[in-house]
């Protein structure tokens, strides 16, 4: 490439002459012409080169180069230099200008170089990043010119990186050393490959090779760091989903001592509430209000699932207080009925709940992994819910009554607290939170009638692991399960990792039958 660029004659600067060069001569001549077109930067070049790769560039008998364009079934011929329409020539009478793979590479490079100077910042960024794929001296020259005029800092950084890569393969020794140093701070796998190749090449200078080794080691360290950060984020994300699923259970099971196997179905009902809200917004409200459906569905899900919870408590569970195993069976029955009811109404296939626009996409904080907005919002949402709940338990009258009833029911009753009402409201609160969890889950996965069964075993394990009747324990339990799960996944695979976690929890419960943060004293005895 280096030689070719030098060999381009200065007299060929003329666009028309270069286009003529495309039509004549060997593939090597065409390649020279393409490269020269690329460096020249004429505005007509982009469409011309695209036509060339697509096989739409034709050569007339008189040496004229013609672009054929097919739009809505009719083929139109256009002069490649003047851009005028040509009538009266049969496309079949013209010869197609043939390209080979090597030429395609040159065209791609030239196009990338041209877009470096585009007025569209997105195209410039893509070109700067794309330039990494074909580093060469020509690229280096182009990038230097582009950097000189570039204003956007993000595009500048990308260009600098590509420039370093280009200098690595084509620069002087000093330039190469500087390039290696600059490249050692990246995490891009392409650059790692480039450095690997450079290091492995037999004619590499030993000093450069040493520098490359150091750079590779530093890249390796960074990649490991990124891996840990990615696992950590995904673990916290999974943990927050588990936490959301388990907070409601921590109230109904942890605080009230009710084994609610229909808890998963409360989550499922919440998710379907989000689905219904979305459909209502789509059907009855202007299209640009659709993003607000999520804001409406959170309280809607809380109220709906909470109401179902209150009905469940008044009609079934209150007859079964103090008989946990019977409660377990009865609520399992409720869960079967709710599942089948939803399946009868909405059908068994998964329902699609789309993210609002402000929750789609993500950003890349350190390079190498993406934090998606929906996961981030769920983490935030989960902590807000937990915080509000803690405040409610400790700072409101309802929370006070709730704690009084769970600690000593007869005494609370004697003090005038209406225990039955508190029971129903507490159960409704736990179910309502499960409903909100369902809205959150609808943003990261499918909504189906058996959504709840996926989370029920996990939620119980989180509550039991963290220690019954303890919100802090639930928080620690959920986050540690989530993080451990994600760190085990790359080592053991997703399913095996989950099995390992289950076995570890089973063993853990043997060691500490009352969980991580066991209640001590008289209330703990009453739980048993």
């Amino acid at each position, binding site marked *: 490439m280096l030689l070719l660029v030098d060999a381009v004659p200065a007299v060929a600067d003329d666009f028309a002459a270069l286009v003529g060069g495309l039509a004549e001569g060997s593939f090597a001549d065409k390649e020279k012409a393409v490269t020269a077109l690329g460096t020249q930067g004429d505005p007509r070049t982009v469409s011309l080169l695209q036509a060339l790769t697509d096989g739409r560039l034709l050569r007339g008998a008189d040496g004229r180069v013609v672009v054929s364009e097919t739009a809505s079934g009719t083929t139109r011929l256009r002069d490649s230099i003047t851009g005028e329409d040509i009538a009266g020539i049969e496309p079949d009478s013209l010869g197609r200008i043939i390209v080979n793979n090597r030429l395609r590479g040159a065209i791609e490079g030239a196009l990338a170089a041209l877009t470096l100077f585009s007025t569209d910042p997105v195209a410039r960024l893509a070109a700067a990043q794309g330039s990494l794929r074909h580093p060469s001296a020509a690229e280096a020259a182009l990038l230097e010119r582009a950097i000189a005029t570039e204003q956007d800092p993000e595009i500048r950084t990308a260009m600098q990186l590509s420039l370093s890569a280009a200098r690595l393969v084509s620069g002087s020794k000093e330039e190469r050393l500087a390039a290696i140093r600059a490249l050692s701070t990246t995490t891009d796998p392409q650059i790692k490959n480039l450095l690997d190749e450079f290091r492995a090449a037999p004619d590499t200078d030993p000093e450069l090779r040493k520098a490359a080794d150091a750079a590779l080691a530093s890249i390796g360290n960074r990649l490991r760091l990124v891996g840990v950060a990615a696992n950590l984020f995904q673990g916290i994300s999974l943990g927050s989903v588990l936490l959301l699923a388990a907070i409601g259970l921590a109230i109904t099971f942890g605080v009230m001592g009710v084994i609610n196997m229909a808890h998963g179905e409360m989550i499922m009902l919440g998710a379907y509430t989000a689905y219904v809200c979305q459909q209502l917004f789509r059907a009855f409200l202007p299209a640009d209000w659709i993003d607000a459906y999520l804001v409406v569905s959170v309280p809607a899900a809380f109220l709906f699932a909470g109401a179902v919870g209150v009905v469940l408590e008044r009609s079934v569970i209150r007859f079964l207080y103090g008989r946990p195993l019977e409660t377990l*069976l009865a609520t399992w029955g409720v869960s079967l*009925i709710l599942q089948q009811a939803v399946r009868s109404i909405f059908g068994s296939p998964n329902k699609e709940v789309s993210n609002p626009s402000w929750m789609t996409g993500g950003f890349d904080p350190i390079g190498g992994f993406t934090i998606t907005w929906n996961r981030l919002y769920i983490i935030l949402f989960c902590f807000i819910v937990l915080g509000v709940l803690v405040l409610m338990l400790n700072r409101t009258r309802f929370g006070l009554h709730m704690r009084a009833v769970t600690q000593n029911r007869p005494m609370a009753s004697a003090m005038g607290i209406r225990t039955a009402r508190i029971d129903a409201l507490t159960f409704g609160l736990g179910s309502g939170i499960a409903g909100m969890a369902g809205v959150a889950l609808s943003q990261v996965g499918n909504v189906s009638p058996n959504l709840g069964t996926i989370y029920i075993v996990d939620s119980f394990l989180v509550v039991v692991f963290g220690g019954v009747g303890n919100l802090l324990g639930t928080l620690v339990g959920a986050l540690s399960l989530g993080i451990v799960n994600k760190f085990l996944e790359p080592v053991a695979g997703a399913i095996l990792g989950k099995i390992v976690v289950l076995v570890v929890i089973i063993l853990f419960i043997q060691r500490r039958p009352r969980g991580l943060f066991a209640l001590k004293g008289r209330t703990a005895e009453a739980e048993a």
Partner: protein
Amino acid sequence: MPALHGGQQRSAWSLGFWTRFLACGVVLVVAVPALNFWVPPDSPAALPDYLVPLLGKYLCYALLALSLDLIWGYAGILSLGHGAFFALGGYCMGMYLMRQIGTRGVYGNPLLPDFMVFLNWKELPWFWWGFDHFAYAAAMVVLVPGLLALVFGWLAFRSRVTGVYLSIITQAMTYALMLAFFRNDMGFGGNNGMTDYKDILGWDIHQASTRLGLYIASVSALGLGFLVCRYITASKLGRVLLALRDAESRVRFLGYSVTNAKLFVFTLSAVLAGIAGALYVPQVGIINPSEFSPGNSIEIAIWVSVGGRGTLVGAIVGAVLVNSAKTWLTGAAPETWLFVLGALFILTTLVFPRGIVGLLRPPSRIRARAAAVVPAGERA
């Protein structure tokens, strides 16, 4: 163990009991094959061929329900992972049946079952060794669930994991096993499980006479299991179990080894469940990991509580009735089955906590058992 004092209970082995037991046995062992085999198929009294393995299947479920009733009804241990022991017994039998296929599989490999050839396995993994012998497979049917229950129970009961906590970790156990068996590289056929069996002990598994033989084996296993459970519940150990169900700490303070007593019945119960699974697999012709699903295990509890928890006959009656209803409803109106099952769960706990047998028993005997329905140890 110190001797138990107190009034001698009515003998569990009275003449009346044996008469009833043998009458049921005769009906099941003699009448069913007679109606199926010798009555001409077009007569209204004839039992069609398809019903024999179906009845056999119900009897396997009955044995499974019996095994859960032994620990739940009598010792207060609600295992939500009993389906796991059932499935493990089934898998042991399934492995034997797979090895009996020999070269008749799709790939005709004399050593490897079809799914292993399909997954490019080169040799038989060690845990499949010996399963071509029936005696070894039969031993494994007993040993695998038994050992798992022994280890699991030892860990759980030693550290006094009781009540709901035990239920949840047994559920986690069967859930973990389900995930494990769904994996293709475990070597148990992955999510397809094992099927396409050809013969058992040399007899063609699809022959009516083989099916009748399997049915009679199921009746015998259920009968023997029933006698064993009755022997245990009527013995001194049975009374210790009842006592620890109602007041575990008190039994412990009185000097009985609660851990050993629980461990013994838990292991025995797992073995019974394993045997039920082993008889179930050749009659339905397939075993797959969904048998491990937590839902299946909870369903066993509903058979027991429909029939009458803490009564051995109740477990059998419940299993047969609920499953007959399931077969009929899933055929007639599949939408309604889950509603009915869910309603059964709620009604049996809220309205009929003593189950069918409890309702039929004379009131004086119910009162004696009424306390058993609400174990005092579980009161908050």
